[in-house]
């Protein structure tokens, strides 16, 4: 049941406990308890929102994907340097990956200069960081499983057999 609740939250984190209860045929109290347990056990670490930045009027956020090569440390592997990077507010996502580089970051800032400044002044000067490769995001097509901008409404017949 916990997984079913989690799947509903993954789909829509604003879902109410009443709706969770209705959909999974459980009581509201039970739904509420499962959600609280998920939060308490840090399985659910937070709730966020998917924003179509391109549709915002005015200032838009600038995002970059940054590939980082690091030297793993003897007493902490990649974790020590990863934690150090993760604590910067500019870093939205951070993962250790296999392949040609070690860490993949999503960095967000208000301007291109801000992100560039973060990379040159903060990120690349951290001890253990060997190199960085920054790709600025030009247009987003999909985030967290939702396609952005190109989902057309398609009208079905209103009544059919």
């Amino acid at each position, binding site marked *: 049941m916990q997984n079913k609740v989690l799947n509903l939250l993954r789909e829509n984190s604003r879902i109410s406990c009443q*709706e969770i209860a209705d959909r999974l045929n459980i009581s509201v109290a039970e739904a509420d308890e499962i959600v609280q347990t998920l939060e308490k056990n840090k399985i659910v670490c937070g709730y966020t929102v998917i924003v179509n930045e391109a549709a915002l009027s005015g200032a838009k956020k600038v995002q970059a994907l940054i590939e980082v090569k690091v030297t793993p440390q003897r007493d902490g592997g990649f974790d020590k340097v990863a934690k150090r990077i993760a604590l910067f507010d500019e870093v939205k996502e951070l993962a250790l990956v296999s392949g040609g580089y070690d860490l993949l970051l999503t960095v967000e800032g208000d301007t291109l200069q801000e992100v560039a400044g973060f990379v040159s002044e903060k990120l690349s000067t951290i001890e253990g960081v060997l190199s960085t490769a920054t790709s600025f995001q030009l247009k987003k097509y999909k985030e967290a499983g939702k396609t952005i901008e190109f989902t057309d409404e398609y009208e079905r017949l209103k*009544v059919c057999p």
Partner: protein
Amino acid sequence: MGENKKNYVASHIAALPKSGIREFFELVNNMSGNVISLGVGEPDFVTPWNIVESGLFSLEKGHTAYTSNLGIPALRKEIVKYIKSNYHVSYAWENECIVTVGVSEALDIAMRALLSPGDEVIYTEPCFVSYPAEITMAHGIPVSVPTYEKDAFALTPETLVKYITPKSKVLLLNFPCNPTGAVMDLENLQGIADLAIKHDLVVITDEIYSELTYDNIEHHSIAALPGMRERTIFLHGFSKAFAMTGWRVGYACGPAEIIDAMMKIHQYGIMSANTTSQEAAIEALRHGKKAMMKMRDSYCERRNVMVKAFNEMGLKCHLPKGAFYAFPNITSTGLSSKEFAKGLLEQQQVAVVPGAAFGASGEGFVRCCYATSINEIYEAMKRIKLFVESCKQK
């Protein structure tokens, strides 16, 4: 034609009533404003992308010609494999399987292949609107067997036996059922199979909703019961489980001599099912299961929401175990199913289908499709509740 008043339409077609759904469709289409429709009989999902993409790739490769009359061999091989592993019946892909333009065509050619004028076809009611018409168009005589709310709309052998006559030739089944959502348990199904064998009936089983069963219920096909394979035509397709209604692709499996007879009609009337759709259907069977299960789970959740809401507002609604329709009892409102559907549409802009459209025994019920977005279901239930309350005040 102008002045020519002569009626050229064949008498048995002229006598055929138009579908009750069609009539209601016109009414809904003429409504302005924010109509929420629970009146559809198809998934609200778009076909999973891997399936669509296979169709596109098929076109890109230039596969735009006819296929074998029976259907693409690779598809027929996948179909018999799928039936074997999910329904536990073995068919030879070479001569016991035919790919059709949806189950609708499969049903049509099955009827035409089996029926001589005057043969009786027994079918359960409430049922899919095409059944009695299909039987009539094939010059058979439709004999409806009612199913009852007290049996959760399953067919019982005790009821069926009363409708069997020496002229009975075919028994047409559709479980999980449109419009009731009923399923058959093994005991009743065995009883039906015994009667079919005893009275030498051919069974046409339309199992288009068979993947869509809920609460861990196992779907049983009558074709898998002992002695039934040789007298059963198994109809299935891709429309409901894989959300592929518009692709129009289905199939029939059965004894070689019956499939061969159906093939003759299909060959002359249709030639072959749509090539693009057939290639997409291969992808559905090979890699479509995960997406299908996800859709099924989603239907199940929406069913829970809808059925609970109906019971809470005082419209008794059995928990359907299959398909994607709720079939609440609306007799407590004092209205007929048509009055209810019309009143609800006019007062609250919610479209449901009157149970009477599915045969006389559907009277007193309405069909509400829960393959509709959850937010629309919540809103529709709110509006239906207001309508039901307004009925009680009168």
